[in-house]
């Protein structure tokens, strides 16, 4: 049986209650809003990119523990990375949540691996990443996880 505690690991609960990089950037170069139609979660993502590197990133919005923790962990993990590296990280993260193989080398992001046992919640974990992808491709339209 899938254990609910696999999804709600301590690290997830901590990040959802005290998210990192929560707020808005005064100076930003990229922005997108993500919206999960299913549950109404909204995330606003501000990014500052300088010469291909994500210098700063912040998110705000309202969402469930999984979407908040995921955004907190994502912003932490992409800060200082190049746009290309961030995009590769998204691919690996997405594979972790939709695949069967155990995740490798994703650091704290691996704490979200348990979400894959609960398919309806995968979108909560990927919302911030889809929003990142939209912001990086300068697609300023609101994105959804559909």
């Amino acid at each position: 049986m899938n254990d609910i505690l696999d999804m709600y690991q301590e690290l997830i609960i901590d990040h959802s209650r005290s998210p990192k990089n929560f707020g808005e950037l005064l100076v930003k170069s990229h922005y997108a809003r993500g919206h999960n139609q299913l549950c109404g979660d909204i995330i606003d993502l501000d990014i500052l990119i300088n010469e291909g590197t994500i210098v700063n990133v912040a998110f705000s919005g309202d969402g469930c523990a999984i979407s908040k923790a995921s955004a907190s962990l994502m912003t932490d993990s992409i800060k200082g990375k190049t746009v290309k590296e961030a995009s590769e990280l998204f691919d690996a993260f997405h594979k972790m949540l939709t695949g069967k193989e155990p995740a490798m080398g994703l650091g704290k992001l691996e704490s979200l691996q348990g979400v894959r046992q609960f398919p309806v919640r995968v979108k909560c974990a990927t919302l911030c990443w889809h929003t990142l992808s939209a912001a990086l491709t300068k697609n300023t339209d609101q994105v959804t996880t559909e």
Partner: protein
Amino acid sequence: MPFDIEKVRKDFPCLAQRVSDRPLIYFDSAATAHKPQGVIDEVKEFYEKFTSNVHRGAHHLSEIATSKYHEARAYVAKFLGVDDDAQIIFTRGTTEAINLVAHGLGKIHFRPGDEIILTEMEHHANIVPWYLLAKEKQLVIKVAPVADDGSLDVLAFKALFNEKTKLAAFAHVSNALGTINPVKEMVAFAKDAQVPTLIDGAQGVHHLPIDVQELGTDFYCFSGHKAYGPSGIGVLFAKKPWLDRFPPYQGGGDMIESVAFDHINFAAPPCKFEAGTPNIEGALGLKKALEYIDHIGFAKIHEYEKSLYDYAVHRLNGLKKVNIIGTAKDKVSLLSFTIDGVHPHDVSSIFNHYGIAIRAGHLCAQPLMKRFGVSALSRASFAFYNTYDEIDHFVAAFKRVFEVFKL
């Protein structure tokens, strides 16, 4: 005879299953209700024995199907307290029924600047069709506010009426709060002001007895699937003069008397509004569902559901951080709540882990979410097939939520 819950539960085969390795506890009947065996058998029997179209040809099966379809309409009419079957239109559900009325009124009733009164607790199905019409016809939507306890501010509702008011459309029962609106008083007031009324009965028709003729409303709508019947079937009651004056909603077969390329005579209501082959098995199943409700009886349904609700509230009252949203005096057995510091979606996931199905989200009532300053709610809705024991498990699951979230 006392209410025999064990016997009732045996009538609903889908309840006897396990979810997350535990017995299913289904507290989401306000989204869609489970079906008694009689409804399932009726739909199955139609496919196995009577499959054929209605109002077509004079062969044996078509005659049976046609007659059963008419009987279903007659039963719905009786159930709603309507004398004339022609005032009962089968639709896909409440949503289509409201859209049908919006279409009809849009063609014959409204002028630019006219006003429509809605309430803050409406489901999107009773907002969006009017919004679309308002945009098209330059109408103004006025909204009656909801009080802190989730009851409608009836004085404010009445104060919205003026000479420009051309429709009042409101829920019988709120899908998010469970509030039973004083529809009798509201319809009477509107009638005095010569304003037609539409009641969205999706959350009311299976909880409360209704006599639409006595009530005097112009329109009443409901869905089959929330009333223990099949999905894809619903009902619009409309007063005959409206149906005579409304142009057809959709064109096609079955809604005509004669067709030539240069002239068409439309059929009389109700067929005028049922273009194409209808959901025959849905109508038959709906009749069985309403028969089932009648068989148990509203008095017993109300008494038992109220006792379930009161028990749940009593058990939850001891829990800190749990806020019940919607505490109006007149309520159906529907309990919306928030838990401080936990998003409803997470609550729902944890409950699901214990085999408990509840709804989480904006409940298709975003203006109401805004009114209560939340983005989403958790909602447990109790039907007469639920038990006190299930509520005990439900209360225990709250404690698991507190543990997981370290509250």
